[in-house]
């Protein structure tokens, strides 16, 4: 029995929603990371031994986790 209407979505629809969320959040995180990289804020992280690559990798992992959660919630 489905409690909420979005729980009736097909696998393809769920995947599409997750992909749209991944792309949207990815773009937002990319803009944020570019802002950090181009301003002095980046030195706040560099001084803790974090590299530019790790900053981008962290945002990618965060984005993936959010997309997977969205995909699973719509089950």
């Amino acid at each position, binding site marked *: 029995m489905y409690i909420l209407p979005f729980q009736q979505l097909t696998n393809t629809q769920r995947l599409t929603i997750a992909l749209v969320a991944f792309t949207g959040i990815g773009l937002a995180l990319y803009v944020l990371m570019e802002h*950090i990289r181009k301003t*002095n*804020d*980046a*030195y*706040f992280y*560099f*001084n*803790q*031994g974090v*590299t530019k690559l790790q900053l981008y990798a962290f945002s990618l992992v965060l984005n993936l986790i959010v997309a997977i959660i969205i995909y699973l919630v719509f089950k």
Partner: protein
Amino acid sequence: MKHQLEIDSVQKSFATKRILSDVYLRTETGNIIGILGRNGCGKSTLFKIIFGTLGAENKFVRIDNVIHKKPYFTREITYLPQDNFIPKHLKVSHAITLYISKDKREEFLNDVLIERIKHQKIKHLSGGEQRYLEIKLILYTSSKFVLLDEPYNGLAPNKIDLVNQLILDSAKHKGIILSDHAYSNVLHVANRICLINNGALYDIKDKKELVRFGYLTDAMLASV
């Protein structure tokens, strides 16, 4: 045990202009090196190359005889950039938690100014308060070497004395390289002076050499 930082064969150009040419610098914990030079001579460029966030045509950075391509990744070296670097949305207390280890936190917070601002957000601090916080954070990290690029920027005279004392205290267990246009402060706090002139780094043995290189006038030197 003393630690060593060695920078060797640094060459850097922007377009066709050679900024740094075969720069060599060696220091160890306990030393404070003051780097002087005119605007655009390459002081900040040299700091970023040492820290590892700016590439160079050629460079070797060794910490305790181990070459590092990106020294900041080792956390053995920290860098205070010219402009404010703590993200504005952070709270002072959050920045302190991220930067200062638990065993040093009580000592760090034992400061009238820090105590007063510790619950505020960075964006609500004045330029001087923010600069003082940044310098203290950088000096209290566990790194062996610290690069301070224009630390006196925006500091009131009473804060300058506090910062000088912080630098002198930190130099007991760290190697410090600083650069600032407030040359009197640099000359006061540093135990070794270098000058960047035409891309080369000169060791200044006598302050009169600063006049000979055209960095200071006789009157300026007399007032130091």
